[in-house]
Every structure is written in structure tokens, then in C-alpha cells.
């Protein structure tokens, strides 16, 4: 009964959340293009599904994904778990190896199965003329997310400022952009945003906030955020790197005698 009541509350809040998108689409369809909506019953049914689905999802987040992320963070940073009982003094960053491993595993696992990544990977093969294989791209992106989240967790553990890492990351991305084949750049930049899926985001955010509230000396407001930023930045690097590798090996196969700019020799 309590569960139903809480679901009902979420449904009411969600209806308000979904109104703007419905309003935007209807306004443009009916007032600007002045066209009737094809297949109206199906569209209405779709909106109903969106509403109910979003309600269930948000309620499930509150009941499962957020608590789970925080619980894992709490258990992994438990003083009894990370340090042997005879250990004296407070733990340093070397003691959190299971946290890093968990971050890497959760980053890799959630990304490799991501459906929207599969679609991007197919398009990448077309753009690159076969030098980028879907499976290779998926591994590249998943590795990028895994490394990103691991580094992000390391940052939370050490409490170093987030913007140093992100700005350093920007410099690396820009340097890589300079050398990467032109056709892949937009796709690589997009892959950063695409990878952080609806399920990954809340779980990873909860992990970060949980870590920041359980590691001594950390403040959730200052240190808890940033994991998602890492997870969207690092895939750009790995995808650009992967594209360069593909380009490089293709050139070596073709045995080009002159050392010219790779994108100029593109067909």
C-alpha cells in the first residue's frame, strides 16, 4: 500500500516533467507546420507508456540504484574492510584498491552492453571505410569509461581538485584532434556523450556521492561529483586513439613511401 502511494506521488511529479516535450512537439506540429498527427491513437499510447515507464524508472532508482550505489561505496570503504585489523593510522589512497577495481569493472561492464553505443559503432565503420571495426570501437569506448571512472574514484579518494584533471584531459583531447583523421572527430566527440546511459548515470553518481561521504575528510558537495564528467571525457581520448591506430596500420599496410599528413592521403 505504501509502495502504491509512493508510485502515485512519482506519477504526479513525472506528468509535470513530461509536459514540456509534449507541448513543444504539439505546438510545432499543429501551429507551425499545420499538419495533423498521423496515427494519433498510437502516439497517445506512446505518451502514456513514456509517462508510466518514467514513473516506474524513477521510483526504481530511488528504491534500488541509488541505495545500491551508496551501499557499495559504504561497504567498499568500510575501515574494517580496507585495512587489516592490526593496521595503525588512517588509510591512504593505496588501501582503496578494491574501490578502483570495482569502478573499473562497473565502467567497463555498463558500457560494453550499451545499445546506443552499438548504433554509433555501426555508423563509425561506414565513416571510416572499414578501418574502425564495431567491436574494436566498443572496447575502446568501454575502456575509456572504465579508465575515466577509475581515475575519478582515485580523485575522490585523494581529494584533488576536479578541474585539474578535466583541463589536462582537454589538452590531451585537443592534441589528439590535431593528429586524428578528420572524418572521425565529430563521432569521437559524440561518443563521449552517448556512452553515459540512463542506468549508468544514477548508479555512478550514487557511487561518487557515497564514496565522498564515507572517506574521511571528503565533502560530498565538493568531491562527490565529477565521475560522470570523467566517463564522458575519456572515451573521446580512447576513440581518437583507436582511430589513429587504425589509420596508422592501414598506412603501413599500403606501404606509403612518403610521410604525409594522414587525412590528406584519404581517398
Amino acid at each position, binding site marked *: 500500500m505504501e509502495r502504491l502511494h509512493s508510485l502515485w506521488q512519482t506519477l504526479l511529479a513525472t506528468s509535470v516533467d513530461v509536459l514540456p516535450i509534449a507541448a513543444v512537439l504539439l505546438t510545432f506540429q499543429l501551429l507551425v507546420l499545420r499538419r495533423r498527427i498521423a496515427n494519433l491513437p498510437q502516439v497517445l499510447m506512446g505518451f502514456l507508456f513514456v509517462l508510466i515507464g518514467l514513473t516506474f*524508472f524513477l521510483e526504481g532508482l530511488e528504491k534500488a540504484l541509488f541505495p545500491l550505489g551508496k551501499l557499495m561505496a559504504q561497504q567498499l570503504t568500510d575501515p574494517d574492510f580496507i585495512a587489516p585489523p592490526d593496521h595503525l593510522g588512517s588509510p591512504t589512497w593505496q588501501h582503496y584498491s578494491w574501490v578502483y577495481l570495482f569502478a573499473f569493472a562497473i565502467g567497463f561492464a555498463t558500457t560494453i552492453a550499451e545499445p546506443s553505443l552499438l548504433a554509433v559503432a555501426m555508423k563509425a565503420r561506414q565513416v571510416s571505410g572499414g578501418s574502425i571495426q564495431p567491436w574494436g570501437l566498443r572496447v575502446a569506448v568501454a575502456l575509456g569509461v572504465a579508465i575515466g571512472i577509475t581515475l575519478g574514484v582515485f580523485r575522490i579518494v585523494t581529494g584533488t581538485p576536479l578541474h585539474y584533471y578535466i583541463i589536462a584531459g582537454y589538452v590531451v583531447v585537443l592534441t589528439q584532434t590535431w593528429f586524428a583523421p578528420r572524418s572521425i572527430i565529430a563521432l569521437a566527440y559524440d561518443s563521449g556523450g552517448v556512452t553515459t546511459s540512463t542506468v549508468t548515470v544514477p548508479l555512478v553518481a550514487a557511487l561518487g*556521492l557515497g564514496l565522498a561521504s564515507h572517506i574521511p575528510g571528503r565533502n560530498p558537495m565538493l568531491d562527490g561529483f565529477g565521475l560522470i564528467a570523467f566517463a564522458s571525457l575519456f572515451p573521446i581520448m580512447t576513440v581518437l586513439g583507436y582511430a589513429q591506430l587504425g589509420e596508422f596500420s592501414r598506412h603501413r599496410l599500403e606501404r606509403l613511401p612518403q610521410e604525409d599528413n594522414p587525412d590528406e592521403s584519404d581517398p
Partner: protein
Amino acid sequence: MNTLLGQMATSLLDSLRDLTPIFLVIGVFQLLVLRQPLPDVLNLAWGMLLVLLGLSLFVQGLKLGLFPIGESLALSFAAKGSVTWLFLFAFALGFGTTVAEPALIAIADETARVAATGGWIEDKEVVRRDYANGLRYTVALSVGFAVMLGVLRILRGWPLQNLIILGYLGVVIMTVFAPKEIVGIAYDSGGVTTSTITVPLVTALGVGLASCIEGRNPMTDGFGLIALASLTPMIFVMAYGTLM
């Protein structure tokens, strides 16, 4: 009705595939590494069931209702030739899709809770709700702006990396001025915005537009809208934090 049920089943399987790796990783860590029982298993299982059902229904609903309208609208506006309407539509599409993004709703609420606990804002239901909504609308505004900018880029044929470099500069400059407490949230909001609803609709607009304009390659010019949409929220949210 049969096809609908079939689609529902496929969508459910897709969501299950999306969630299985997460269950596996958490399961392995709970059983082998932590060796601690999960408290409140019943509520966790109920929540997971809701996530699974909710995600499937949501995606199915998008395919039935939102995507067909959104895509046909995006294509009509791309082909219509009126630049003013195209910009207006681009902005509205970015704004509307982001406001309804599930991950953003969840993160905004959670951020408000953290801010309230940390004493950054008053710990009252109304204040928290206002803060979460303010954050959401700021992000939505910035995505609307980004999609508009991306459309302008496609029309003009500007190289994407120039805009990205400008954006990175903007982020760095804003970081200097913004209060420390907002930086992490701002950086995260870039990645949060672009998931279930925004990506397919915005990509449809970009690719549709690039294929309507002569001399543009839909593969290289059509992409890049998402990249801009993950960059501008950082700048806008930091501005919001500075002004508040």
C-alpha cells in the same frame, strides 16, 4: 496487438541486457569480495523490477509516440528552408527533450538533497524542489542553445573542433569564477543530458539537415550536435551557480 506485445518483449530483453552486466559486477563483488549480506533485499528487488519495467515501457513509448513525431518534424524543418523556424525548432527540441530526460531528473533531485544536507541551500521541500528545477531548466536551456549552435554550424560548415576549443576555453574560464561547490555538478551535467530521449531526436535533426544541404556529408557534418550539447551545460550551470 501481437506485434505490440512482441515489441514489448524485445524492449524488455534489451533493458535486461543493459542491466545484466551491472547485476553481475555487483553480485561478484558482494559474494566474493565484500561477503556481506545485502540489507533490505526485498526493497532492492522491487526497485530493480521497477527500473527494468520502467525502462522498457519508456523506450517502447518513445518509439511509438515521440520518435515518429520528432523525426518527421526534424526532417520537415530541415527541408522547409526557413532559417528562423529551423533555429526556433532546434532550440525547442533541445530544451524539450532535455527537460524530460530521466537521468537528469534523478540527478537534479539528488544534487538538491546533497546541497541541502551540506547546508548549501535551506533544507526545505520547496527550496530543494526549486533548486532541482532551476538546475534542470538551466541544463535544458543550454542544450537548446547548443542544438541551435550546432544547426548554425551545419548551415555554415564550420569545423566542429573550433567550436569545441572555444567551448573548452569557456569551461576553463568559468571554472576560475564559479564557486567551488558548483564545479563538480556542472562538469557532470554535461554527460547527464545526453541519453535516452535527446540522442536519437537530435541526431535525426543533424543527419536530416546535413543530407538536405548540398556539399555537406551527413556522416561527418550530421554528428557533433551531441558533443556541443554535452559541453554547453557545463558553462551554463557554472554561470547559474555564480549568479545564484
